[in-house]
């Protein structure tokens, strides 16, 4: 059991975490955050393994990983 928490206000929608995810369960959202960026969001949270590749790749330290 693992989960990630995305700080949507820190996210700048650079999309670097999307190809980093081996399960392909991170996608762009359709809404905006306060800065005007589309933050990323996780789909199918039950598939997350907590590998932390998304968090390692994130240039804005916007992702926390729990396991």
């Amino acid at each position, binding site marked *: 059991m693992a989960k990630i928490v995305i700080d949507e206000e820190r996210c700048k929608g650079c999309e*670097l975490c999307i190809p980093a995810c081996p399960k392909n369960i991170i996608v762009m959202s359709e809404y905006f955050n306060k800065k005007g960026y589309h933050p990323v969001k996780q789909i199918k949270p039950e598939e997350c393994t907590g590998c932390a590749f998304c968090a390692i790749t994130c*240039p*804005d330290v916007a992702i926390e990983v729990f396991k």
Partner: protein
Amino acid sequence: MKKVFGSPKSLTKVPFTYCPGCHHGIAHRLIAEVLDEFGVREKTVGVCPVGCSVFAYVFFDCDMICAAHGRAPAVATGMKRAKPDSIIFTYQGDGDLASIGTAEIVHTANRGENITVIFINNAIYGMTGGQMAPTTLIGQVTQTSPYGRDPKTMGYPIKVAEMLSTLKGVAYISRVALSKPAYILKAKKAIRKAFQSQIEGKGFSLVEILSTCPTNWGLSPIEANKWLEENMIPYYPLGEFKTPEEVS
């Protein structure tokens, strides 16, 4: 559930002001994680450069000082000599370290000052709007090389890691990249070794980090990562150029 990954203590909670996809944030986080792991945050002083990362003093939760353009190694030398027990690192870009600060970095390395230099090489001047840097690749189009860098009039890209590794005072030099998770993990190892060699008093250490500047390269962050791997890594090979035997 236990938190297995989060913001390191050596970073403040202030959101980074860098452009989306800029690798400065990753480099900042790796340095902060290493400071946390060694438990040296309270006695660390960082020197920020002139460039986009001039704001590093806002993001690092340790003592920071801002040096004049290119002079970070000189300021670091003074601080290390005045307080030899402190951990001193400089964080410099290619315009700062390889252009205006060439004299300072070469002589600081040659004197074997016991400091750690984090050198961000993104092959362009970021903050000033994308001008040609000494590390700009041959043929690369920038604001000041609109027809591509021509070595006949503009010289060749400087390989800082190789150049400095010939100096005797240098203890540890390596080049890493931040374009994919595997590289990022290796980059952290290299930064760890650099700080370790300073803590053990081995001498000058430098980590050259190949990073992207999506805004000034005119690419999306994902395309910029690809461009880095296809163009920069062949010219700037990754790896360690000098290691003291005891640091491994």
